[in-house]
């Protein structure tokens, strides 16, 4: 038995509150879409989208660390689970989004206009 059996109820409710607040903030931003964030972009993506993605990653962190109780696991387990996912997802995103953007430019600038 690796875990001491103390009740974590308080922490669970705190994390629930936090996740709810983040979701509400996301929805509010999604409805208002403030121009400052919506119209300015960083690395070809609007600041608003960056905000959504960062908030989502924060939520993901709390779900994995608090709800799935990753914080109580050995660091070998943490690394074995988290690092491959992060590495492979970043790699996949890099390669697919670059390719998608390239195809967009082909449609836009060359003679091919539409290709199903």
């Amino acid at each position: 038995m690796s875990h001491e059996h103390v009740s974590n109820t308080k922490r669970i409710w705190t994390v629930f509150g936090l996740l709810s607040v983040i979701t509400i903030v996301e929805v509010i931003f999604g409805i208002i879409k403030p121009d400052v964030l919506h119209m300015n972009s960083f690395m070809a993506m609007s600041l608003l989208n960056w905000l959504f993605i960062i908030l989502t990653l924060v939520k993901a962190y709390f779900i994995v660390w608090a709800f799935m109780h990753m914080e109580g696991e050995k660091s070998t387990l943490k690394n074995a689970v988290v690092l491959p996912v992060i590495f492979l997802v970043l790699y996949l995103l890099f390669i697919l989004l670059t390719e998608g953007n390239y195809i967009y430019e082909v449609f836009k600038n060359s003679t091919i206009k539409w290709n199903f």
Partner: protein
Amino acid sequence: MEATVTTANSEEKTWGGGNEPMKASYGKLMMWFFIVSDALTFSGFLAAYGFSRFKFIETWPLADEVFTHFPFMHGVSAPMYYVALMTFILIFSSVTMVLAVDAGHQMKKDKVVIYMFLTIIGGMIFVGSQAWEWKNFIKGEYGAIETKGGSLLQFVDKEGHRVALADFAATLPEEREQLTRSKGKWFMSESSLPSYSVAEVQAGFKAHPDLLIRTEVITKEKHKTILSRKDSELRLTQASLVVEGANLTHNEYGSKLFADFFFFITGFHGFHVFSGIIINIIIFFNVLVGTYEKRRSYEMVEKVGLYWHFVDLVWVFVFTFFYLV
């Protein structure tokens, strides 16, 4: 660290099994690695969605114009509220799940039963909500015209508000029968006909000089382009199909790929929720009959809990990439 200590202390036990270098039982470890592979599967789907979206970045549908329904609020545009509610339901069922795990650690059977029951109910409400969302998406709201080139034309009034086909399409004295297998010359049939023919929409558009056409192209202000009346009339001559609602081949909201990915990714996630509910029900009955009480360990609840949280985790990403970004 721990692994080296284990090896040093019990050399003859190293290959004999029974040691847990990661200090997690076999079942739990395998659940974690299943989750890793499933997470990569979902990442593949979402990355493919990103690929297609980047490919058609200028014509992709705007999500807050697609998902605007809320139960019992007809005709009110309520973007995002419903799926935010769905997110809450799923997060809350995650909370009850983790409370069940917590109660299991303290060997409190009654509490585990109550919390697992709540988790199952939450999951069922979520799947039901998703079915409702699909229903609205499939049914559509305004209807649109697809051109010969495959792009989509929607109708707006002078202020830029969407207008439904039903509000302006003319009724022409024409009969067109649905082709069914029984009447086809070969194995031919077609899906149900749209409520209006292309000619009826064109005639109706001519009779309403206030109407304009909105194309899929997104402007610098991040709205869809609205054509002038003259351009609108010109574009409408290229019409080839009336599209109402969405399916895997046509989609009144815009890019066909959007509907394909929506059905596939939310469907795959919904299937995960469904299997999660089934597994939860099995474990729930095991708890009821006291299997884990006899085992003196509620670790099985913890393992299904991991799966359930993972389903919640995936939804958080689906929510962001389909509804927010």
